[in-house]
């Protein structure tokens, strides 16, 4: 452990990462309308949320410890599936969060107590 960079070097790195991240965030918002984008890009836009969100969710459920785990020992997968059902039924973020966290705590308590 320990940071080998000087204080000034660290601040410069943070600043550059901030600028790079800002450039990515600004990219299309800034240039929209000034550059003509092909039709396919317009069609692709509506698939971004589903593709990215699923890519953030599924590995956290199926590979919580790094390796693919589809067994009943994977408590996060079970709790996640339960939360998915609640999400489908209620379409409510807070209910989904509450159901998923409660299920995970309950499962952890049951397994821990066994």
């Amino acid at each position, binding site marked *: 452990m320990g940071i080998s960079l000087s204080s000034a070097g660290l601040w410069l790195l943070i600043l550059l*990462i901030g600028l790079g991240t800002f450039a990515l965030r600004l990219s299309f918002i800034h240039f*929209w309308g000034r550059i003509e984008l092909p039709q396919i890009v317009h069609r692709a836009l509506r698939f971004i949320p589903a593709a990215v969100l699923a890519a953030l969710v599924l590995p956290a459920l199926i590979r919580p410890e790094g390796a693919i785990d589809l067994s009943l020992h994977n408590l996060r997968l079970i709790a996640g599936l339960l939360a998915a059902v609640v999400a489908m039924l209620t379409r409510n973020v807070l209910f*989904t969060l509450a159901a998923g966290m409660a299920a995970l705590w309950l499962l952890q308590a049951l397994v821990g107590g066994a």
Partner: protein
Amino acid sequence: MQTSRLRAFSAGFMSIVPLMPGVIPFAMICGVTAIKAGLSPQAAMGMSLIVFAGASQLAVIQLLAAGALPLVIFFTAVIINLRFAMYSASLAPYFQHLPKRWRWPLAYLLTDQGYAMTINHYLSDKPTADTHRHWFYFGTGIAMWGAWQPGTAAGILLGSTIPASWSLDFAIPLTFMALLIPGLRDRPTLVAALVGGGVAVLAAGLPFNLGLVLAAVSGIAAGLAAETLMQRREG
């Protein structure tokens, strides 16, 4: 005029409030781990203010602690944040009428959660009137920023971790799931989600979070292909 702006702003702000149980612990973890890794409180807070992107902040902290090359740290952070360019493209059509003094601050405030709530709202049955649409997004951005910065500060000040047994990190994928499911409106979108999620699972071992970018691109391509196929079948 004023009230409809305020209404759009508060609707955006309030849409983020239910996500706070996922956002605030994540911000605190960023603050705590930065201190544990040896960053000064000023640098830890500075990074949170300047970068304002949790996943990349955590990666930077981890790499700094491991003594990685600054160039590697820079590229890792930028690759993890490539998804913001996709969000930027998705939101850009809604902001095209705005001047630079709006576009630039709105871009700085772009986050996963703010994007997801905003695009769900814009695509919903009852979106805000066109001229005030950016006020909804601005509300999500201020709510996220207003949760993230004090959350990081609290993590820095506490300097002690939330017990791992609370599994509060699980709130993050649960949040994304709650945002994903209502958006699965038709078959091509479902295909995009299944392929995106499936590729992400298989490619999770790739370095620098590249699996996420690969998964997103695959999912989008699969959605486009499914849509084209369905149109051909109908046409």
